[in-house]
């Protein structure tokens, strides 16, 4: 499967087309991309009301427009962290805030990208991407145009009429990315979105993610159990188990893999797991 097709490279032009289109008629779709949200957890105890709570309270501030990756072993509560940030799960204790305002319920500001199978299987790829726009009551023609733009950007321009089950796993995740970003969220919460993909597809998806996030200004919290993925994508890496947050020396630069600082950080992260 080709991971990133050449058509996605024209991201800048697609971006300007998309924002020009949305700026045109509807006030509902806020023309230019709004700045990323600042998310924060203040002494939050994560967990389900009738389940086991994550042992340590979490204090974390994610700056506007930052890409924070969260690494930790499976089952340590990374998904719970994202669901709490999204507003799907209230914290057992403490406060979750977005730009200082408490987060009480899920909303379009914080889109969640799931590990797999979160597309509505009865809706075509196009209708799935149009969903956040339909929820905002964007006029139909503009919805259509915006969805086509986003599908083009993730390299699936020709697949708009297909159903999700007719696509490969990697393609479905690209549709999920397009759907999440089509709503122009101020924060994107990603729960091991590439976890089920093979290594080659995964690298392509990482590049695609970096490409399409550029210019959106959205804050991103990216959960993964893959240390290399965390070190490549993140501005900072949060070690879920210890609560440390470390700066990444060369974010999103493939050439920096062998750099001594990166190697040192990688060892440190691996030791913590």
């Amino acid at each position, binding site marked *: 499967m080709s991971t990133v097709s050449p058509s996605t490279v024209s991201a800048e032009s697609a971006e300007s087309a998309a924002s020009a289109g949305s700026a045109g008629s509807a006030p509902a779709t806020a023309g230019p991309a709004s700045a990323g949200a600042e998310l924060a957890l203040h002494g939050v105890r994560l967990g389900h009301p009738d389940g086991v709570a994550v042992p340590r309270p979490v204090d974390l501030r994610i700056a506007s427009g930052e890409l924070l990756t969260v690494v930790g072993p499976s089952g340590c509560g990374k998904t719970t962290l994202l669901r709490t940030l999204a507003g799907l799960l209230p914290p057992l204790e403490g406060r979750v805030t977005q730009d200082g305002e408490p987060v009480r319920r899920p*909303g379009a500001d914080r889109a969640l990208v799931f590990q797999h199978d979160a597309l*509505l*299987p009865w809706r075509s790829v196009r209708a799935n991407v149009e969903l956040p726009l339909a929820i905002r009551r964007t006029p139909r023609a503009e919805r259509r145009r915006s969805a086509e733009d986003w599908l083009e950007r993730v390299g699936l321009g020709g697949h708009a009429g297909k159903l999700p089950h007719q696509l490969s796993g990697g393609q479905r995740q690209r549709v999920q990315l397009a759907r999440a970003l089509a709503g122009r969220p101020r924060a994107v*919460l990603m729960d091991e979105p590439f976890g089920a993909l093979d290594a080659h597809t995964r690298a392509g998806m990482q590049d695609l993610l970096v490409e399409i996030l550029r210019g959106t200004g959205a804050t991103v919290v990216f959960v993964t159990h893959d240390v290399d993925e965390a070190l490549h994508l993140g501005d900072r890496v949060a070690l879920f188990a210890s609560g440390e947050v470390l700066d990444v020396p060369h974010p999103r630069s493939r050439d920096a893999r062998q750099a001594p600082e990166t190697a040192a950080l990688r060892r440190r992260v691996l030791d913590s797991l």
Partner: protein
Amino acid sequence: MSTGRRLVRVASPLAALGLWQLLTSLDVNLWLRFEQFPTVVEVASALADRVGTEVYWQDLGHSLRRISVGFLLAAVLGVAAGTAVARSRWAADTLGPLVEVVRPIPAIALVPVAILLLPTNEQGIVFITCAAALFPVLVSTRHAVRALNPVWEEAVLTLGGGRARVLFSVVLPGALPGIFGGLSVGIGVSWICVISAEMISGEYGVGYRTWQDYTIVDYPGVFVGMATIGALGWLTSTAVESLGRRVTAWLPRPTAGVPVGGTVRAVRAAVPLAPSVTPSGTSRATSSDASAVLRPEKEPVP
């Protein structure tokens, strides 16, 4: 469908008719007694006579109107109540026990209730038809809604959707395959009950006519009634089925030509090989039906 299968489908009822004609025309009496039994030819000529009369079509129209109104009411009420019971604890607490108590009562046993409550016989028959189809629809809807993948709802919530959006974009479309299972069962039960109700208290209608023919010992007429009921039931259930197939066209289907049994075996065989499936999870993975559609999302971490 291949020509061979089509041929078998036509040949099977023809063979049954042939056997019937043979047994009745020869007046066979081998413990089962066929001397009084009308022959196929007698029934066919009675049918031909009846089809020419206005009464036949009037009866047909009455029965069809009763079942349409009763069944549509049941479909709307059943889907609404089933969804409510599955989605709201309040509805589950208030409606749930009532449903479980009323459900085992055969709809035809509600005739006294219908006579006491409703002003006209006509409304009584519609009421019984509706009551018959209501529970299969309600129960299948309840199960289908409870079996929805929670990730779909969460996805719509984090895209900014509210309760109404979740209901109309996730719950109802996602439950449609199950709802149509209930509707298919419901239309069959509805026919049984509309005919029975007409026999007991109807004026006009296929059931009423069939019972009338019986009381005047017109056996070919009784069989004409039965054939009519069979044909109507078949037509309506085919209509429900094909509508169901149309609205659930998104369901992944086995590729044409691959025998279903083969695919199932292949899936079963593949399960133990999947690295993520633990031995304790294997039974769940194999028993969960339609696992291709409702693949369990990553378990929320406790």
